[in-house]
């Protein structure tokens, strides 16, 4: 049964609104500080109930604080997401029409790549083919920068991938839109940045942090599906950033 909302919940919601996404240690710290500021007993174990109470109230307006995992570090994050696709939600003014078209082209490039990333050159070239209104190279570079700043894309050495915030919010959209979208063999979540089985008849994907956990201490790793040798480097398990 959901607890009613108090100012501590409202402050937590407002914080998530302005940050967009938080990792688990940030979420815990926020939970604690929101409770302390409004004189509410803080119980570290009750974060899920605390968020649940907010989500019950957000449901009628199709907004949710949703939990998901990062493809890069494997840790849990909480993001505030929109769930509705209507004439009203399309009134959003954060991006111009052609900027959104560039975002979709970027998603196409990333999802259809093997590496789960797209080079800035490929993206900028696609900016030349926009149907709404073409973007000059300089403009497109600025738009990409804005997507990174707003936490929709990640950038590393000139190559772009979908951010954790983007994957959490767009999960169902990505699954509906891209027919050949692969999910991780271990965790069942969308797998973009991942290792792929070399066997062309198999080709399953496993996230890199999932690989680390799945093959931990295994000196002779084999594909869990086709049993072929797993020919990739097995990374170390990353430790979560400690709370505080």
């Amino acid at each position, binding site marked *: 049964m959901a607890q009613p909302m108090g100012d501590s919940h409202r402050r937590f919601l407002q914080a998530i609104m302005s940050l967009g996404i938080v990792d688990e240690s940030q979420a815990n710290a926020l939970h604690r500080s929101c409770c302390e500021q409004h004189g509410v007993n803080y119980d570290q174990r009750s974060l899920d109930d605390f968020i649940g109470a907010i989500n019950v109230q957000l449901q009628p307006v199709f907004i949710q604080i949703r939990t998901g995992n990062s493809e890069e570090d494997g840790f849990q994050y909480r993001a505030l997401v929109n769930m509705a*696709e209507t004439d009203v939600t399309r009134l959003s003014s954060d991006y111009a029409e052609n900027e959104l*078209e560039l975002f979709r082209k970027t998603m196409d490039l990333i999802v259809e790549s093997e590496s789960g990333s797209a080079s800035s050159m490929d993206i900028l070239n696609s900016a030349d083919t926009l149907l709404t209104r073409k973007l000059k190279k300089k403009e497109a570079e600025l738009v990409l920068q804005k997507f990174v700043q*707003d936490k929709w894309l990640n950038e590393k050495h000139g190559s772009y991938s979908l951010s954790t915030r983007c994957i959490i*919010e767009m999960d169902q959209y990505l699954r509906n*839109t891209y027919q050949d979208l692969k999910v991780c063999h271990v965790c069942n979540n969308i797998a973009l940045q991942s290792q792929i089985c070399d066997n062309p008849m198999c080709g399953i994907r496993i996230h890199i942090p999932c690989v680390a956990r799945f093959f931990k201490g295994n000196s002779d790793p084999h594909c869990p599906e086709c049993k072929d040798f797993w020919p990739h480097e097995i990374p170390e398990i990353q430790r979560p950033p400690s709370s505080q």
Partner: protein
Amino acid sequence: GKEKANQLQAEGSLFDPAAYAEHLLSFMGFNRLEDEDDNDEELTGFLPSDSWQRLAKRASGCFRTAPSFHYMLGSFLSEPPQPKQRVE
């Protein structure tokens, strides 16, 4: 000059924007450089790159601004990626 300005302020409601600007500059971490040509009008020096952030941080306590909601899903019409259309 400065003492007199302070005195005037102490007496009443006079507020001097120029003196205020100097106080703001020192709060914002202004780096004063030695001024050779004895020019009182404009201080020579530079502000560090985080100076406005610093002021914003302090000033945000005066504002009761509501945070705003940003999202990507639903901001465009969803349709499957089109096979490259030929534009005549």
